[in-house]
């Protein structure tokens, strides 16, 4: 857990909500849900030690390993 990254992301998230929420008053509920869910995803991801964590990039590299070996030859 990296508190610095988490703290910075939380500040950014709060700033985004403060900036965006007044403009979203008339938008349907679905927009607000999507907005908050995506922000929450970002906040949750910031709690992990992302550079060392296996993620989509590594899955893709595994998926294309035969091609990758061809290129590394």
């Amino acid at each position, binding site marked *: 857990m990296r508190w610095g*990254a988490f703290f910075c*992301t939380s500040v*950014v*998230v709060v700033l*985004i909500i403060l*900036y*965006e929420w007044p*403009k*979203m008053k008339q*938008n*349907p509920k*679905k*927009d*607000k849900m*999507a*907005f908050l869910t*995506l*922000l929450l*995803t*970002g906040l949750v*991801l*910031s709690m992990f030690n*992302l*550079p*060392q*964590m*296996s*993620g*989509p*990039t*590594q899955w*893709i*590299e595994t*998926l*294309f390993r035969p*091609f*990758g070996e061809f*290129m*590394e030859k």
Partner: protein
Amino acid sequence: MEKGKISSLQMAFMMYPTIVATAILGVPSITAKYAKTDLWLSPILASLIGYATVYIAYKLHKLYPKQTVIQFSEQIIGRIPGKILGFLFLFFYIPITGQILRSYGEYIVDSFLVKTPISVVMASMILLCAFIVRGGIEVLGRAAQLFVPVFIIPILLLIILLGPDLEFKNIFPILGNGIMPPIKGSIVPGGWFSEFFLMIFLLPFLTDMKKGMKYGMRTVFAVMMTLVVVNLIVLFVLGSTTSTKNYPLMNVSRYISFADFFEHLESAIMAVWIVGAFVKISVFYYAAALGTAQWLNLSDYRPVVWPIGILIVEFSFWSYPSAMDVSRFDIIAFPFYGVLMQTLIPLLLLVIAVVKRNRQRKKGSNSS
């Protein structure tokens, strides 16, 4: 959702830096690793993927004129498979935007702002891009129109100022090891050329849709010429050491020494290059934001712009412990992943759509 309109020339101005901005930076040395002195042939071969992608994108656009790929894939292959494919596209574009942002940040930190934390470089760029993406496609189009000349002219100046350093005999032997090395070298630029599929997110907003294909093809040609010229300059100046440099064009610009006045121009080149990267990241970011909003059937894409910005920055760190891993991804995965997602899957969609349409037409003529 998006009410703005752009001209097809503005689309061309948006697509040009989208391919060129990062392709002139690291790709020449990757190409040189495989193609040796024939690296200037590789972009010509790779551009075939670009032409094919533009053709596929335009044909799909003609079948479904008002929609982007996220919307019409639901109509082509059905609701649930369409949603899954849409998710795959988003899952391609958001992490790839992160990867581009990271390679931008690594380049700046590596070459110039050595003591600045990379997250600051990247966050300030994504902040700028978020503002322009929120502004809409018109703002993006006009910014591109303004910035692209600023981006192209220094490349031309570079050629003139480098005149005395060019060693034309570095080009020989041409095809010394047969045609295979340039073909293998064209795989990586091919991934870049497949990025032309981003046109599909811009085509529905053109005022003059008929010219979309023409300008798309012209852009592919312009990108191909730029890459050939850049690869030739790099080859003429650096010769066989090209493949050992991380950012060959930057190394080349350090050679400039003209009339004892034009020296250390690399910082000027960097400033200009940031403009290109800015347009590139903005176009990818726009596609990601618009795609997400359409995938979720939102009424507007603007609310998701900022949250996606956070996701892009996080994806730019995810699974990339160091700069090595970022450039390695460009070699071993991106060319294949990019071509699969942006050329082969759209081709499949096009074939299904055409077959479906023909069958419907047959049914229509039978019943009437």
